[in-house]
């Protein structure tokens, strides 16, 4: 019947948690995974990565069809109309299909699925509450993978109706006429472009004087210009002091980040996309003595173990980029170390991808970081305008930029704006994983005509010997 004791209980069935659970099962552990949602997949599958990618895809198709651009390609479409309800239903179906898929993976790997709110009364013990039913399970080890939740701003209260987080922004019932996006990180920009494509007038408000904090400066600058051409407007170096309901919409009180006079602007909907905060409430960590950082992240050592032996943590709930694929790497590494193997995550090689059109992808160091570290580097840039495939498919915006060490030619960073940037970046992940050089990429054969050739040409450009530019 129902097992009560496990080798490992994973709290959280998002990408970090479910992947860790499956890996642990592969390594021979008896594993249970508990999540409060009936559907697995966490934020990513339910209200994050997947629904946003579905909407980005369908909104892009709509914008292409509605823009009249197709007529120039020889495709005559009569009036194109948006059926938002169906678009949302499609998104939901995609999500349901994938979350169901994880259930199958659990069944295949014999991972025990527990549903409910988890609480850790003591090391080695997890109490799962479903409604009023409470069951206690014991485990050799507990892995916390509870992820994160959207952060908010003081003075701005998210109601998921007109003041929304990414969760609400993925399920709006109608296209807002005017949408404010607070925060110019990748979440805000992705969702901003979705609604802009569907007809909204989008204004992005950002506290810093640049968009995409943390990404390469040149990329941020060029990408902002591209988004402006798509109709988004930007107000940088601006702080949002408060948000209040006004009529059916929202009124935002804005001031320059440096201080000064405030102005009031009205929108139909305001999306708060200022970051995410680790989610640790309800686990009982304080009582256990699990140490947290200033930012609320769980502190772990290099084995992903917290300050309490037997309790581990991975993913958004610990330090590092708050990305699904980073959580997956964490989860696998943590579990492999538990099994006595060598688990390792190279945090320098976690790609960052923005799934707009064109996409943006980054890996390794930015130019700013290299300059700050005093590392001498050379760079090779190649524009998609000179890539035959990009030209043939009408997606010639953007460029590939590779950064290599000036003396050893070792690749240090890669930055791409362009079609399939998020896919193209993985060639560089593989090469950098082996400490490869720009010349290694330049001397490998790349199919023609592909977008990947732009990566090869950028590598050639590092040595000032690009052929096609």
């Amino acid at each position, binding site marked *: 019947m129902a097992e009560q004791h496990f080798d490992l209980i994973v709290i959280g069935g998002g990408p970090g948690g479910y992947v860790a659970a499956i890996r642990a099962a592969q390594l021979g552990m008896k594993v249970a995974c508990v999540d409060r949602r009936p559907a697995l997949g966490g934020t990513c599958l339910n209200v994050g990565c997947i629904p946003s990618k579905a909407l980005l895809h369908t909104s892009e198709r709509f914008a292409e069809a509605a823009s009249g651009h197709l007529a120039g390609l020889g495709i005559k479409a009569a009036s194109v109309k948006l059926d938002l309800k169906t678009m949302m239903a499609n998104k939901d179906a995609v999500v349901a299909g994938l979350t169901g898929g994880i259930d199958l993976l659990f069944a295949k790997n014999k991972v025990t699925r527990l549903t409910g709110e988890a609480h850790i009364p003591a090391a080695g013990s997890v109490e799962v509450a479903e409604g009023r039913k409470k069951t206690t399970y014991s485990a050799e080890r507990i892995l916390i993978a509870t992820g994160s939740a959207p952060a908010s701003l003081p003075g701005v209260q998210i109601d998921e109706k007109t003041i929304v987080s990414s969760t609400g922004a993925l399920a709006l019932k109608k296209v807002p006429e005017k949408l404010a996006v607070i925060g110019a990180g990748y979440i805000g920009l992705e969702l901003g472009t979705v609604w802009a494509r569907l007809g909204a007038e989008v204004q992005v408000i950002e506290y810093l004087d640049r968009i995409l904090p943390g990404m390469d400066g040149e990329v941020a600058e060029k990408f902002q210009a591209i988004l402006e051409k798509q109709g988004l407007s930007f107000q940088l170096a601006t702080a949002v002091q408060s948000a209040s309901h006004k009529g059916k919409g929202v009124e935002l009180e804005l001031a320059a980040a440096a201080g000064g006079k405030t102005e009031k602007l009205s929108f139909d909907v305001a999306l708060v996309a200022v970051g995410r905060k680790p989610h640790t409430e309800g686990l009982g960590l304080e009582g256990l003595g699990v140490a947290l950082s200033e930012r609320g992240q769980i502190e772990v050592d290099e084995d992903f173990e917290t300050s309490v032996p037997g309790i581990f943590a991975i993913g958004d709930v610990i330090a590092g980029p708050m990305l699904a694929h980073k959580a997956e790497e964490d989860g696998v590494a943590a579990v492999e170390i538990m099994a006595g193997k060598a688990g390792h995550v190279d945090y320098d090689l976690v790609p960052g991808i923005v799934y707009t059109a064109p996409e943006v992808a980054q890996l390794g160091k930015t130019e700013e970081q290299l300059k700050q570290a005093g590392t001498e580097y050379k760079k090779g840039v190649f524009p998609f305008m000179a890539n035959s495939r990009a030209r043939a498919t009408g997606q010639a915006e953007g460029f590939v930029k590779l950064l290599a060490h000036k003396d050893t030619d070792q690749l240090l960073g890669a930055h791409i704006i362009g079609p399939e940037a998020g896919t193209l970046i993985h060639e560089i992940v593989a090469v950098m994983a082996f400490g*490869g050089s720009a010349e290694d990429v330049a001397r490998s054969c790349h199919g023609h005509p592909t977008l990947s050739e732009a990566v090869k040409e950028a590598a050639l450009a590092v040595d000032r010997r690009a052929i096609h530019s």
Partner: protein
Amino acid sequence: MSVEIKVPVLGESVSEATVASWMKAAGETVAADEPLVELETDKVTLEVPAPAAGVLEQIVAEAGSVVGVDAVLGLIAEGAAASPAADTAPQKAADSAPAKATQAETGSVESGPVNSGPPVTPPVQMPAPVAAAPLSPAVRRLVEEHNLDPAKITASGKDGRLTKADVLAAIDSGTARRMAAPAAAPAAAAPRPRTDDPREERVPMSRLRQVIAQRLKEAQNNAAMLTTFNEVDMGAVMELRAAYKEDFEKNYGVRLGFMGFFVRAVITALREFPAVNAEIHGTDIVYKPFSNIGVAVGTPQGLVVPVLKDAQDLSLAEVEARITTFGQQARDGKLSPSDMAGGSFTISNGGVYGSLMSTPILNPPQSGILGMHKIQKRPMAIGDKVEIRPMMYLALSYDHRIIDGREAVSFLVRIKELIEDPRRLLLGV
């Protein structure tokens, strides 16, 4: 001594398993802890490692059979070495390794196993250790351009791979070693350390000199080179020359030398001994129905060998004319690489410098070279009397791999015959 391979504890409340597959066959060598057999339970699939090193003596539980915990799966003959095949290459992983063990050997290009907790044995190595991990494109380029031995460069990349930085560092610090020459002779390694005497003058070799040096070594290293000698009485040719050199010059505007005669003699002899005109390519012998005769010319920069293409179709006058032109072009540095390509046999005349006898070196990929020398009056036995005759020593260096001694000697004798009686050249006998 036989060691039993037993079914391990399978897990809580699991008492039996099915043998899914054996990774080794009876008679094969096994290393300690090497995975031998896969067991399947309804919860999990697990591998059973070898309890000791030795030879898998016997498989007791075949694939498909059901076994209980602690049952005997097979037997290992402990310590017995198997056939030389597996396991000769150094195995490092079997020693217990801490979870974060670092890379095995530096300076090795072989990709080693990632040593971790429970000892994981690397896959059995091939008997002849070959550079395991392929070189990355940039590394390969550098290694080839600088003719380096990758096995001698310290590797810092993943799993002991060389990175471009490693090779650049080795080149800079001068620690990179050249590859050994393909033939038996050990390499022209990096030159041995040397302190120059202040009175000495160090001059870098010119490009041409370096190429000549490389080709000479190549010739010596590849061919089984021997030299056979003979002597030729130049009297008849000299008489012929004296009689007709004015007419010749008047007719053709070019001096009548000796080369024309030798070229024609060589062509006749090559027709009779085709192996001397042939070339070894890989494991094939390439025979040529034409004779492209190279004529060595000395220049201040060094020796060059322009080629008389299809010399069999040239008249004696044409040969002399071409050779004169070549000589001029060589001195002016106007010979092109195509002028010097495609030769099938070479004639070299050391006599102009006063050489009496020498052993010419082959011009690869050719298989023969004729050395002409100084014409010197010597007392010779003609019949039973002593006469002073103008004599020239001839040398034929040849590649013994495709030309046997009898052929080489006969070839040279034929040249002698044809020169000593130039009427033979006319008649072709």
